[in-house]
């Protein structure tokens, strides 16, 4: 197993180098002169030349890549063209918001998805099973941004029970500790802020949770059905164990193993979903940050963000695989 992890880590280095190269080339291949982008259309030729010299834009492209990579390893991606702030700092500021949103969405998706999947499998071909499967079909087919808009229209515009966007009602005060508003309001025992921040997050979380919920429900169902057909389950039943004990004490443990991978795989999906949900609900998180940066051709942000996220994503995938190895000793990776 150590060998496997070491091998994966070695591959990780290759993949990350490739990712950095693609990210760099992709952004540099974009139309427009970075110096002109930085200074605006009316800059003098002298000024442009100065900037080109300062940012090594006159050097050969591989030298530029090397310089960029050297800085990137130190966590320095330069400054945003739009805000003139450091990219890394801007990203760090937005992590808590997106983390909070994704965590809540993932909890909703896992809890409801797993329960629905189990019910569906235990009562295969019942009305409940069909209900869950049809619901899951709608879930995987749902455009997240449309669902978000519909939720917003019903609950915010028509019923007026949730706010249309943002994180907190304007004027409300909350001491910032972690940057996750729900957690912060609990830590500071601020009841009003707690209710308010939950109200702001509930619709985006539900919208973001829909697709993972559907995939988790489907996966739980098929995994559970497979486990329920196995010999050891028949033995349990033959022993006279109640159906409840068979399902909830014995089958569930093995059935949930593949779900770990599904949840791991959904992290990437959540990132894509966060771009859409944060845009709809005007949440100042990472998703909205990258969407705005791309629309504004803010290249340092796009480069830094993409590289950081690909890295995180690769690490999460690796962690999922290793976790899988631990919880299911039957699996042997070569």
């Amino acid at each position, binding site marked *: 197993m150590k060998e496997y992890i070491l091998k994966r880590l070695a*591959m990780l280095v*290759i*993949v*990350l180098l*490739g*990712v950095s190269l*693609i*990210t760099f080339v*992709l*952004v540099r*291949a*974009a*139309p427009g002169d970075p110096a002109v982008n930085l200074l605006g259309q009316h800059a003098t030729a002298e000024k442009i030349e100065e900037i080109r010299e300062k940012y090594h834009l006159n050097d050969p492209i591989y030298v530029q890549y090397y310089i960029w990579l050297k800085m990137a390893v130190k966590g320095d991606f330069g400054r945003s063209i739009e805000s003139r702030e450091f990219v890394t700092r801007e990203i760090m500021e937005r992590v808590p918001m997106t983390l909070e949103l994704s965590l809540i969405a993932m909890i909703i998706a896992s809890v409801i998805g797993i329960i629905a999947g189990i019910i569906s499998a235990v009562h295969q071909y019942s009305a409940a099973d069909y209900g869950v499967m049809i619901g899951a*079909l*709608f879930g*995987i*087919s*749902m*455009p997240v*941004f*449309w*669902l978000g*808009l*519909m939720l*917003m*229209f019903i609950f915010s*515009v028509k019923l007026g029970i949730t706010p*249309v966007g943002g994180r907190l009602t304007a004027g409300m005060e909350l001491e910032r500790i972690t940057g996750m508003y729900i957690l912060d309001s609990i830590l500071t025992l601020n009841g009003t802020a707690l209710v308010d921040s939950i109200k702001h997050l509930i619709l985006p979380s539900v919208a973001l949770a829909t697709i993972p919920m559907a*995939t988790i429900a*489907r*996966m739980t*169902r*098929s*995994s559970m*059905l497979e486990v329920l057909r196995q010999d050891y389950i028949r033995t349990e039943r033959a022993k006279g164990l109640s159906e409840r004990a068979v399902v909830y004490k014995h089958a569930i443990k093995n059935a949930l193993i593949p779900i770990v991978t*599904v949840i791991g*795989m959904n*992290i*990437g*999906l959540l*990132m*894509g*979903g966060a*771009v*859409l949900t944060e*845009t*709809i609900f005007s949440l100042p998180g990472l998703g909205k940050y*990258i*969407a705005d940066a*791309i*629309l504004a*051709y803010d*290249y340092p942000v*796009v480069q830094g963000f*993409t590289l950081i*996220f*690909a*890295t995180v*994503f*690769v690490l999460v995938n690796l962690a999922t695989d290793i976790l899988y190895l631990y919880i299911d000793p039957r699996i042997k990776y070569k």
Partner: protein
Amino acid sequence: MTEDTKFKRRTRTQDTIRQLKKNKTAMVGLAMLLAIFILCIGAPIFAPHGPYDADLDRGSKPGFWSDDCIPGYYLGTDYLGRDLLSRILYGGRVTLSVGFVALGFALIVGTSMGMSAGYFGGKIDSILMRIVDILFAYPALLLALVIAGTLGRGIDKAMLAIGVVYTPQMARVMRGAVLIIKETEYIEAEHAIGSSTSRIIFKHVLPNSLAPIIVYSTLMLATAILDAAALGFLGVGAQSPSPEWGLSLSIARKYLVTGAWWAATFPGVAILLSVISLNLLGDGLRDALDPRLKGGAKL
């Protein structure tokens, strides 16, 4: 004539079609999909109005459910007074073609990559699969967004971006299929009689690996359409005044607070129905073509 010869010989394709016909959900999906295609391709015939015919006097009017409806504008109008139904029919041509072209790109590039990697193995396999690993390192929509965004705006860029995102998935599916077929005895027999590599690939390996490719293509097309609409919604895909579904939604969003829900609702319903029909068909095809995967969840 003996009893035995009365059995009709059936090819694999005929067998699959029989299987598929028995699968009700797949047939529902296929019927929905065909209806959507016919309506969108035939938009010039079916659409009651032109997709760009604007008239501010009839802006944001509701459809048949309301007394305020303008006769002939069944689903209401958007903020510029353009007929929503007509725009949805024409918009389907854009959204669906982005999905199709992207899938086509992924099919051609991805299957070639997977085929070479699986069939030749060794160094070619290592290099190609590392490229696949690198592309897999990006969350799908993020990669599509970055590619489409840096290349500029427009549906051609969106097509390429989504195509690139789905290429590694296609490559992996193809490689897996080829690896299994390569080890079979009839391929060994082909080698033994001295068949050329291209003959083995095109006459044997490719046709036999088609089943998983067809299944995955259908399911991938479903997500490709979602991504196409998402890029349009975020503003890097189709550009105004295109009736593309995602873009229409993004514009109609600003008028939601005024109560004009229909302009933001129906394009979404169109996306949902298209994607559902493909998912139904894809699940059915999987059951018919690949019995081993039966009942398995989509990954």
